[in-house]
């Protein structure tokens, strides 16, 4: 039997027509079946995905992404009988304030009513728009009452503020270490300056102002700290507070300080840098003894849910999660539960529910604090998430709980 090219072409065409017809017949419109319409709830991930703060941005974005997938896989959320699925849309703000505002405007134009973002430096200029457009926002920001206050009712802080990290834990650590000459060498942005203000207030309250011998601010993308270190090391400090550096910045700061002969101790109370790159770039020997907050040692995770989260993150991204990832994961789960409980998309109703809602998440019970809390002066509103705050110290390249 001879098969011509023409007959093959005809056969292909026939098969295509049959497949198309089958598709049409099976479609809901032809069969008369009606699928329930699934609506979308958009959350804007307004984060740095490039530049020196990108590790923070990816960390938060992935945490929210895992939470979005979790809620959607469980069938989404139901509001007044209608099913809603979450959709995360991304915008790279490069950790530049103007870009973050542009991202927010773009997100609003795309229909986002919710947002996750990070960094006081880029969140501050977004606040007027967040308030005007009532964008329910979960944000990893240190700072203090400048951010969390009764005027900013749509802005929820996913991490402990500087009033807890620096003013409470920081002072405890300095006392325990017996710090006599403290240098603050932090990022030259809103976060760094806010940290400095909080630190100076806390030192004053504790009658320790005289230990602060120098404060310096350098850009977050600094690679060579040698000139500024030459300046501050001339004051013979015994402790350097890094404040708010991502891993690479802190690692280079420590490495170069050690190269210049600095023998004292380091803390980094706001930044929660990832340990892997910190050790690799800074050198295991150099970063030995660095004390940090918000980081859990992988072998000391407190709950099974957290262990499962850690394992899932590692499986997906081939690296350990950063603090921003689990903090934003928990905050998003709380937000999503609040939207469902409010049975409304009205931002005012949602934020009212959020403030009273308690859920069990990765680190146990999750709730919002801030109002009438003596540790959080001037907040006046329950817009800060609270969860256990670990203090870790690096030993032989690994974080362990600092006692």
């Amino acid at each position: 039997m001879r098969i011509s090219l023409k007959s093959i072409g005809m056969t292909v065409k026939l098969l295509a027509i049959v497949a198309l017809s089958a598709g049409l017949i099976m479609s809901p419109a032809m069969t008369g079946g009606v699928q329930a319409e699934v609506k979308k709830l958009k959350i804007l991930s307004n984060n740095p995905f490039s530049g020196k703060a990108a590790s923070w941005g990816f960390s938060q974005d992935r945490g929210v992404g895992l939470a979005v997938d979790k809620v959607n896989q469980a069938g989404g959320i139901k509001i007044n009988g209608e099913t809603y699925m979450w959709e995360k849309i991304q915008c790279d703000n490069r950790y530049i304030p103007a870009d973050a505002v542009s991202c927010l405007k773009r997100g609003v134009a795309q229909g986002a009513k919710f947002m996750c973002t990070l960094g006081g430096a880029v969140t501050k200029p977004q606040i007027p728009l967040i308030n005007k457009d009532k964008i329910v926002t979960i944000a990893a920001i240190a700072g203090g009452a400048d951010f969390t206050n009764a005027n900013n009712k749509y802005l929820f802080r996913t991490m402990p503020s500087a009033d807890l990290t620096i003013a409470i834990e920081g002072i405890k650590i300095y006392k325990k270490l017996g710090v006599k000459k403290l240098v603050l060498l932090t990022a030259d942005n809103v976060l760094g300056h806010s940290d400095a203000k909080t630190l100076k207030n806390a030192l004053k309250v504790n009658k320790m102002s005289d230990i602060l011998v120098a404060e310096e601010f350098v850009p977050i993308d600094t690679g060579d700290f040698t000139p500024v270190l030459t300046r501050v090391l001339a004051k013979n400090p015994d402790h350097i507070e890094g404040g708010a550096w991502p891993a690479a910045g802190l690692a280079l700061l420590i490495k170069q300080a050690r190269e210049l002969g600095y023998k004292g101790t380091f803390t980094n109370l706001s930044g929660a840098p990832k340990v892997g790159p910190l050790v690799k770039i800074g050198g295991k020997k150099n970063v030995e003894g660095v004390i940090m907050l918000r980081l859990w040692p992988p072998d000391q995770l407190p709950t099974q849910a957290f262990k499962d989260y850690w394992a899932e993150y590692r499986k997906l991204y081939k690296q350990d999660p950063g603090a921003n990832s689990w903090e934003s994961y928990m905050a998003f789960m709380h937000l999503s539960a609040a939207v469902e409980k409010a049975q409304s998309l009205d931002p005012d109703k949602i934020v009212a529910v959020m403030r009273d809602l308690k859920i069990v998440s990765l680190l146990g019970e999750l709730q919002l604090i801030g109002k009438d809390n003596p540790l959080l002066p001037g907040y006046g509103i329950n817009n800060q998430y609270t969860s256990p705050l670990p203090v870790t110290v690096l030993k032989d390249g690994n974080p362990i709980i600092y006692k």
Partner: protein
Amino acid sequence: MFMQMAVTGLVLGSIYMLVASGLTLIYGIMHQVNMAHGVFFMLGAMATYYATEVIGLPYFVALFAVVLVFPIIGAAFERGIFRNIRHIWLAGYMATVGVWMLMEGLGWQVFGTEQKAVSFPITGLIRLPGGAVLPANKLWVGLIAIAIMAGVYYLVGRTALGRQLRAVEQNPRAAELMGINADRAMAKGFALGVTLAALAGGLVSTLYSVDPSCGSTPMLKAFIIIILGGLGNVTGSVIAAYILGFIDSFGGSLLGYQAGHFMGFGLVILILIFKPSGIMGDE
């Protein structure tokens, strides 16, 4: 403290000189601003990282591999993107901006989000008179940068290729009448500039961290240097690099980071006001 500032200034100047050399060369030959310069710096740093830390090649072998591979990448970039639009200044400029944005964005997807580190084979501290210290890796990077610049001077000043490049730089049409293939000479010049950027990335990666954005700050410094030195003038950019290195060191140490930064940019503005062509630029 003075000695430490002087040593830091020398090291920073050498690093800046190396980073700016490729940019100066490309501008000198093609009169085109290459906004993708930082991308080639980053790719050189990444190539060195993968060659040493992932594949396990010795550091200097990895650096040699960069020298072998990047001329091809540079020539391909010149032929594929740059050649057809280089006579339209704005189109060439925008094309290199596009490459910069695209490659940096792609870099985060391809190379991942974790910052990386490259180890230099020589470690330790050198103690100098006056209480100054100099990390051995910085000393070596500075010395290699000086050696590379000496090589560039020799290549441009004493070889047949250098004569071709200088001829094309002065007058491409006249060079063609003298039997020089201007297109080919420009491709070689561009390839050389790209290789210098990649080499700078490979060397500087041992001092700082490596990520897809790591070329942006060096590129900014390089631009300050080539404006300060006189656009396209290699000697001018060497002088400008050391001036900037000393300003960063002395300014940052004595007055704080911001003051040092302000002094650097302030000097550029002053030079642009009083000598717009830069320190060694032709009027």
